[in-house]
């Protein structure tokens, strides 16, 4: 074998090794970046959803939030943000949501109460994950702690209180050739009534 043949072989092997690396770098870059982007978009969306909430009163004079208006607005914002025209794409986006719900806590919860709700919602998230067949090693408790902070000593100080809109968005990674990075995005907003 001549030296030139060896060098051509070297270059061919080198390119074969570089090409997957290049693809992987691109993929990683896109994942990190889309996570930041989704985070900002959903923060904004969940803030806008609670902007025009219609609050009525029931027969006993208690304020009632019109949830249909909230969900209609949410759907409209999804459609506008991602340029969705057809129902199939919309259902795909909805499939990526582990949770998008409007809760109404009429007072600040105690530790035990929030713990009960936490366990209940953890089960919901586990079921949703099971349905989506996500094969990764996510620590559900850690994941949920951010969604629903229950302790004042945790990194997020404030407990949920009042009408609150929470979204947990987990885009499907099945089509991605490389796995290993979790793009879960959590956002929420709270209505605070001031005089």
């Amino acid at each position, binding site marked *: 074998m001549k030296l030139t*043949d060896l*060098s*051509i072989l070297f*270059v061919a092997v*080198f390119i074969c090794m570089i090409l997957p690396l290049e693809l992987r770098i691109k993929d990683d*870059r896109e994942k990190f970046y889309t996570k930041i982007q989704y985070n900002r*978009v959903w923060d904004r969306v969940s803030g*806008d959803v609670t902007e025009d909430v219609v609050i009525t009163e029931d027969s006993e004079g208690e304020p009632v939030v019109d949830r249909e208006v909230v969900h209609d607005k949410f759907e409209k914002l999804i459609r506008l943000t*991602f340029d969705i025209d057809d129902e199939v794409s919309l259902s795909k986006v909805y499939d990526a949501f582990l949770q998008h719900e409007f809760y109404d806590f009429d007072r600040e919860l105690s530790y035990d109460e929030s713990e009960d709700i936490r366990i209940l919602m953890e089960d919901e998230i586990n079921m949703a994950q099971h349905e989506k067949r996500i094969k990764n090693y996510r620590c559900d408790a850690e994941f949920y702690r951010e969604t629903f902070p229950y302790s004042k000593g945790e990194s997020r100080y404030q407990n949920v209180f009042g009408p609150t809109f929470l979204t947990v968005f987990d885009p499907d990674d099945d089509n991605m050739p490389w796995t290993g990075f979790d793009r879960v995005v959590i956002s929420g907003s709270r209505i605070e009534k001031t005089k």
Partner: protein
Amino acid sequence: MDDIFGKVVSLFLAVCVMFGMPFIYMTERAKSARQVYILSEVTCFVDNVCNIGFIDRDMMQKLYMNLSFSDGITMIDILHESDEFVAEDGDGYTDGEVKAYSRVNTFRDEYDIWDVVENDEKYRFLKGDYLKVTVREENTFSMFPFIEDNTVSAVYGGCVKYETD
């Protein structure tokens, strides 16, 4: 002769690899930085407009200037969606009667905004209107031309919170 041909080919490939690869990684880093930069600029613009409720010429020029320096072509799309109530001109309405209004989603793009802004007027938004800015770069450098690189892009939108008089 064969040996000379082989030497030329191997030299060419070696030069491609040795000088191309560092350049690739530097451009990848630059792309990553540009992505975050574009997203910051777009977020800044949209939040600004949503809080003050209008766009004037300086704001548009600043947005275009900040986004326009790059190797490739930067495409900027602005979408303004608003719910408008349009009077229906149906049959059966007389003068004294209240006319029926129907709700219409109106979409406007950056050309409509430029038409207003170029005359030194403010393009005003109503409260609850939706504004979205989409930025994407085309013809950016890529080592393998068959792999499309659409990663340098940003989408951000939000509802207008404040309405000026």
